[in-house]
């Protein structure tokens, strides 16, 4: 069964042209980019080209790109690099809806003597900016806010925030793992000091990430070792993946318009049809201000894991904000921070599209999903009481 893959915020397909670009570096071109001989040096040249391509997508310069192993490493590096550079500052800020890579790191730091302020969001998932600006102080070492939310797709006004923080001299990091490749980003026009991205969210392979560090930003390495990445991240380069990521950046830049037109229309069609055909469901997050590929829909009175597994029978791949899928017992912290009621949070499904999706994919979901929800609701003890009011 061919998968109907609507889980692109979890990971994406490696683009065939990206894979093709990578393959020689698993084969004949196995040299170490740091070597003196031209056999290795040639690989070093390709890595520099990749660095330029990535910098090009972000509006950065190649020297500002540090390769890491994943988005999580980029996030940890950014935070640790900064707090080590400003050891006297003991206050850090983030939002209540971050990815675990930041959320759990901040939780950890809060137990080691750091004061943490968590910026709340409103019911649409938009940041409480007044809270953020009211809580800045001379003691604040770093503010880290995601560019776009992985569950709802809601986009934060990162450029504005970065400008304001820059004027105050506070280091600003953004986890842009979900934003890069989906919406245009130009770091030359913002005050963002550090930005994390992850290769596998933009059609490059898993196991490669980038931390952008603006020139002039204080930095202290997280992985200490060799001279690679100008001494900012030790470890022999993941050459094939770096070269693949360079190609992937070209690929997403070329498809950026398509992502924001055709893919967006597919997402809107899916959402509109579901809302029309299925009673008692609602979209989570600010529909005017989100990624073009993401839709988070809450189906009241049913549970997310059950929906996912029934869709799985038709090869439909999505993910859920419910508790049961993650092994935790409470629904996602993002939905709770937004105040989504439990009746809806437990039955939330996230669809996330990519340029590989077609009209046929969406039509299949529109055909298969309504009977699934109806069937699960017919089993639910809460449905009968509530459907009268629907």
């Amino acid at each position, binding site marked *: 069964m061919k998968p109907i893959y609507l889980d692109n915020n979890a990971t994406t397909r490696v683009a065939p042209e990206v894979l093709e670009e990578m393959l020689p570096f698993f084969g004949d071109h196995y040299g170490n980019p740091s070597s003196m001989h031209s056999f290795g040096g040639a690989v070093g040249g390709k890595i520099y080209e990749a660095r330029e391509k990535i910098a090009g997508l972000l509006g950065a310069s190649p020297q500002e790109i540090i390769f890491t192993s994943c988005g999580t490493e980029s996030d940890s590096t950014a935070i640790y690099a900064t707090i080590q550079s400003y050891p006297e500052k003991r206050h850090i800020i983030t939002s209540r809806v971050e990815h675990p890579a930041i959320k759990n790191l901040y939780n950890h730091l809060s137990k080691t003597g750091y004061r943490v302020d968590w910026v*709340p969001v409103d019911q649409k998932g938009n940041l409480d900016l007044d809270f953020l600006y009211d809580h800045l102080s001379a003691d604040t070492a770093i503010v880290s806010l995601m560019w776009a939310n992985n569950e709802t797709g809601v986009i934060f006004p990162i450029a504005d925030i970065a400008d304001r923080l820059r004027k105050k001299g506070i280091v600003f990091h953004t986890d842009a793992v979900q934003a890069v490749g989906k919406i245009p980003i130009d770091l030359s026009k913002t005050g963002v000091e550090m930005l994390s991205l992850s290769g596998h969210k933009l059609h490059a392979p898993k196991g490669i990430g980038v931390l952008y560090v603006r020139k002039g930003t204080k930095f202290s390495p997280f992985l200490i070792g060799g001279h690679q990445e100008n001494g900012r991240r030790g470890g022999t380069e993941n050459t094939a993946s770096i070269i693949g990521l360079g190609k992937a950046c070209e690929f997403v830049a070329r498809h950026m318009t398509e992502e924001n037109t055709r893919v967006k229309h597919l997402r809107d069609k899916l959402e509109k049809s579901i809302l029309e055909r299925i009673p008692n469901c609602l979209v989570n997050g600010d529909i005017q201000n989100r990624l073009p590929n993401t839709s988070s829909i809450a189906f009241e*009175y*049913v549970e997310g894991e*059950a929906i996912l597994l029934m869709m799985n*029978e038709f090869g439909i791949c999505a993910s859920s904000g419910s508790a*049961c899928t993650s092994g*935790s*017992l*409470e629904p996602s912290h993002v939905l709770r921070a937004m105040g989504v009621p439990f009746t809806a949070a437990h039955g939330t499904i996230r669809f996330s599209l990519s340029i590989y999706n077609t009209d046929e994919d969406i039509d299949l979901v529109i055909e298969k999903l309504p009977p699934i929800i109806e069937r699960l609701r017919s089993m639910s*003890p809460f449905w009968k009481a509530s459907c009268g009011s629907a």
Partner: protein
Amino acid sequence: MWDYTDKVKDHFLNPRNVGEIENADGVGEVGSLACGDALTLYLKLDDNQRIKEAKFKTFGCASAIASSSALTEMVVGLTLEEAEKITNEQIAEYLGGLPKEKMHCSVMGRDALEKAISCYRGSGDKVLDGEIVCECFGITDKQIQRAIQENHLKTVEEVTDYVKAGGGCGKCHEKIQDIIDVILGREKQPVENRKTLTNIQKIRLIEETLDREIKPELKKDGGDIELIDVVGNRVQVRLRGSCASCKMSQVTLKNYVETKLRELVLPDLTVEEVQS
């Protein structure tokens, strides 16, 4: 992805005995929408007091639906005395096993069965007896003790897997550990003897504890607390922010704020809310 057995998948995709029984002899309702799963079990008896028919309605994940379905197959033909001997372990075994994080689904089935039987007999509600330990999921000490004893649980994590207690905010982990320790016969740590505090010292310590320990936790949920006065050992506070309108705030006040202050300041303190 969960490693569900084929039998779990079968009972999830083709559940047996879904529905309600009109004029059922016993009905057992457990769980809630907020908790993420709920089951209503209906039982009909024949003239010989054997279970003739069992039906269910379940809101929940695949293993919750499968456990409910399995339960209805297991009880038909049994007398009530036989049915009440069914354990959660047997429900899980019937399905070829459940992932450990999903064992609470089998416990939910057993609890619903017990409730349905009590309902028929008109006897009291055994399950909800006791004192609430886990506020998030409304789980009592009795339920936790029983799960520990029946399933030989040894850690807080296991208790969470079986009855959900401790799976939310995590504030009850210490209490759950205490229950485990008592059952396993471990010695409880002796409570530290506190030296006598002057009034000023007491108030300062209360203020410090509120600032350092309690406010940051409440703020995570958008709430806050203000110390109004200390009268003897009565700590008078006012709740602010989202706590002020939260229905669970009295529980928070007693089970969290009071417990924390007793632990860190004085064991005799009580906390009360005063209105402005």
